[in-house]
């Protein structure tokens, strides 16, 4: 019986993907709303107009619902590293644990404390002090995301650590290298600002609903103005950082960028087309059809006009010698672990850089035992492992394209909304307002597809080049995995249902009826605003 059950690995992956994608339904809104609240409250402090305070409080309330439900969904993943990915935790725990621990501290101490002060401090703190707290909430929520992205950056490009043959695990060498890794940096900015886009679309979409239903018009017009401007610049920044991430993938993860671009063969001329659409077939390693724009791919990916981009089939071929070296590295490591002699250590050091490829070959060895491969079997094992070195192209290609096309759609939508807001013609554009409403979930969708691009594109590795995903899982039985998977799916669906119910309820209710139109039947004021005299204030 093989040591590692592939079904358990697949179920562990499915469970992590499910919990991560569920969790990330909440995260971007938190990242973005806090910044928008900071902008709204700044406008309140500058102009002294009550409406901006009310805006901060109302959107703050919706942010609060999202935060309260969302924070619980993140916790399980930290435990999953221990329960389902114990080999991963053993192998990189020294390095990975540090950013995760800091994130825990950030989220639970800094972020939560300031959120408490933000909600309950309105009557107790001076205007500038409360504003400072709102900025700290925004900073803290984004800083806690920073540490997760640093941890993820390590999985994409392991910087700041090396393998220790005595402990058989990765050893932490440099905190600075880990934190300032270029991949972690670009990831953080791309993801954090993707959150800004999500927050802006949420504010714009809900406000569009008020304009369409002829309610809270003054409130909605101001919210749209701020959200459209905020969203437009943020989306431009997301696209810029997306380009930087693509460039880094070209430098650090050639298999990922080739999968993103559906590139099977190395480009030989600068005229290589950038594929707008294609149907990649992973089995035949070719694209069934493709529509491309010539001369775009090379400058887009390499930022030059002449460099070639390696294709997947050539990358598989190039992995052959690495696989053979990796098998030698593991053989030497096994010897060293029993003898601790200098000769086997020297052999291991010689092939150490390719050790991960040896681990990868293990799944194709008889009984997953590299020592059991006979010389006659070796070419077949290497050939099979070569095929395993590339990710699923169909998934990576399309996940990337959906995210990217949505990005350009957001630019257009925010630009139109900013333009019509400046021209004071929002209400005449009912089609655009409806589009804003139905686009509320679109940035969340783009984020989900972004993560699919990043994670599916990194396969077959959990730590790129070092630790294959199938080696990283725990040795559970299938029944346990199926049971916990169903449990998570049910529990998380409950969270989503609660979020949607509360969000719809409070967004429908709206801030309160400030405009002079009669409230629509069934809509009242939010309890927090329902103080005597509150409704009498005028925003104009």
């Amino acid at each position, binding site marked *: 019986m093989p040591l590692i059950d592939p079904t358990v690995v697949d179920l562990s992956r499915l469970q992590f993907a499910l919990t991560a994608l569920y969790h990330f339904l909440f995260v971007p809104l938190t990242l973005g709303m806090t*910044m*928008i609240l*900071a*902008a*709204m409250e*700044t*406008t309140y402090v*500058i*102009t002294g*107009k009550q409406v*901006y305070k009310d805006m901060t409080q109302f959107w703050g309330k919706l942010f609060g619902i999202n935060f309260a439900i969302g924070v619980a969904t993140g916790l399980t993943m930290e435990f999953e590293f221990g329960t389902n990915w114990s080999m991963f935790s053993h192998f990189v725990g020294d390095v990975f644990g540090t950013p995760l621990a800091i994130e825990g501290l950030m989220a639970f101490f800094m972020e939560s404390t300031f959120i408490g002060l933000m909600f309950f401090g309105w009557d107790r703190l001076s205007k500038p002090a409360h504003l400072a707290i709102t900025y700290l909430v925004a900073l803290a929520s*984004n800083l806690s995301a920073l540490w997760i992205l640093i941890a993820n950056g390590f999985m994409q490009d392991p910087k700041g650590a090396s393998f220790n043959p005595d402990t058989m695990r990765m050893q932490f060498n440099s905190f*600075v290298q880990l*934190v*300032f890794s*270029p991949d972690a*940096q*670009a990831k*953080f*900015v791309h993801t*954090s*600002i993707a959150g*800004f886009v999500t927050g802006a679309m949420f504010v714009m979409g809900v406000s569009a609903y008020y304009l369409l239903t002829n309610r809270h018009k003054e409130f909605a*017009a*101001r919210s749209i*103005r*701020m*959200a*459209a*401007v*905020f969203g437009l*610049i*943020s989306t431009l*920044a997301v696209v810029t*950082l997306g380009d*930087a991430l693509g460039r880094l993938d070209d430098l650090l993860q050639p298999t990922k960028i080739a999968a993103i671009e559906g590139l099977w063969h190395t480009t030989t001329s600068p005229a290589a087309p950038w594929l707008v659409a294609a149907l990649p077939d992973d089995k035949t390693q070719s694209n069934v059809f493709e529509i491309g724009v010539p001369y775009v791919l090379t400058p887009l990916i390499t930022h030059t006009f002449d460099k070639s981009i390696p294709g997947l089939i050539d990358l598989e071929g190039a992995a052959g010698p690495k696989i053979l070296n990796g098998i030698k590295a593991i053989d030497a490591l096994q010897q060293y672990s029993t003898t601790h002699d200098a000769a086997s250590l020297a052999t291991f050091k010689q092939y150490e850089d390719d050790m991960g490829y040896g681990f990868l070959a293990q799944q194709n060895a008889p009984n997953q035992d590299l020592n059991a491969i006979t010389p006659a079997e070796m070419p077949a094992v290497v050939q099979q492992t070569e095929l395993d070195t590339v990710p699923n192209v169909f998934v990576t290609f399309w996940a990337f394209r959906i995210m990217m096309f949505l990005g350009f759609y957001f630019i257009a939508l925010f630009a139109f909304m*900013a333009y019509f*807001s*400046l021209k*004071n013609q929002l209400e005449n554009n009912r089609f655009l307002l409806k589009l804003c409403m139905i686009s509320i979930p679109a940035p969340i969708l783009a984020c989900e597809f972004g993560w699919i691009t990043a994670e599916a594109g990194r396969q077959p590795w959990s730590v790129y080049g070092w630790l294959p995903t199938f080696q990283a899982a725990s040795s559970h039985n299938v029944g346990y995995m199926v049971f916990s998977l169903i449990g998570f799916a049910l529990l998380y669906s409950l969270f989503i249902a609660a979020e949607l119910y509360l969000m719809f309820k409070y967004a429908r209710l709206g801030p309160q009826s400030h405009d002079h139109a009669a409230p629509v039947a069934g809509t009242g004021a939010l309890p927090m605003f329902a103080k005597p005299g509150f409704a009498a204030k005028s925003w*104009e």
Partner: protein
Amino acid sequence: MKTFTKFLGLAVVLLIAIVLAVLCGDYGPWYFAWLVGTTMIILIAVAGGVLFETQLETQKKGS
């Protein structure tokens, strides 16, 4: 005295900003870009809000 303290406070903030810019700009260009960019995004959104009020005032005066 109050003005002097304010001046001193702002000078310290400026110094921190410069040190941050030099260090961050060297080691963490994207982190630095995030700090500057996020500040800009917020300030431009705030300017959008303030402009809204100015437009409203002008409209009221005109009518």
